[in-house]
């Protein structure tokens, strides 16, 4: 009876591992040789040149697998995702890149995050900007909300 339970549990475990790799779908740098990012077109009414520039600079880093960034005139919010094997050094990487970004964009407030939630929120925001379905005022509100999320500790 115990043997049966053991086998069952082990099979569930194997099944979940198999599914997990499919579900997360993180593009591995080695396979695709590209990072998940979209540059917002420059003829869009809301200027995203700072964000695009940030994405350019960050895509030179080997370990980054995804970048999302949105900016207003005063604030630039960037979120990245890195290879899972590098996650032990996540805090250090975050510190380094925050410093780098703050030096690059000295005249604008930079918020840098490695959090999955921020990545998701910025992705949604980017899509809205790209499709033109968001106004400047709403964008500023959203950026404020996301900035607050970045700062939350509990």
């Amino acid at each position, binding site marked *: 009876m115990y043997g049966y339970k053991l086998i069952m549990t082990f099979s569930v*475990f194997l099944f*979940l*591992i198999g599914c*997990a*790799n499919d*579900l*997360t779908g*993180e593009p591995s740098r080695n396979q695709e040789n590209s990072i998940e990012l979209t540059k917002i077109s420059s003829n869009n009414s809301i200027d995203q040149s700072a964000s695009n520039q940030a994405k350019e600079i960050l895509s030179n880093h080997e370990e980054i697998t995804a970048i999302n960034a949105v900016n207003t005139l005063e604030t630039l919010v960037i979120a990245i995702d890195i290879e*899972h094997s590098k*996650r*032990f*050094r*996540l*805090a250090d990487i975050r510190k380094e890149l925050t410093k780098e970004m703050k030096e690059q964009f000295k005249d604008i407030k930079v918020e840098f995050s490695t959090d999955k939630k921020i990545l998701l929120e910025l992705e949604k925001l980017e899509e809205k900007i790209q499709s033109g379905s968001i106004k400047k005022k709403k964008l500023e509100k959203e950026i404020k909300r996301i900035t607050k999320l970045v700062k939350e*500790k*509990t």
Partner: protein
Amino acid sequence: MIFFWAFIIGGLICVIGQIMFDVFKLTPAHTLSILVISGAILDGFGLYEPLIDFAGAGATVPITSFGNSLVHGAMAEAKKHGLIGVVTGMFEVTSSGISAAIIFGVIGALIFKPKG
């Protein structure tokens, strides 16, 4: 990937607990206390947060994360208010486990019947 590592690291921490049960013949109370203290010490050396970044729930679900949270709360408060923060800040970042256990304990006592 994080699901895989959550499973592995969580399992490994439980194996450590099992070794304490079987090889060192410790009671659950002893084992859990040692694990919480270990979590606190690991966070003192800055080793527990990277584990959480890598293994997600594999490091936040075992009881060791309780020690980690307490040290975090204490350090955060100490940063703001100096040494006294070590005493006052401990439960600022976490109380979720204890609160939930107590609340659901009382609710459980209200709705469930004791067995045998």
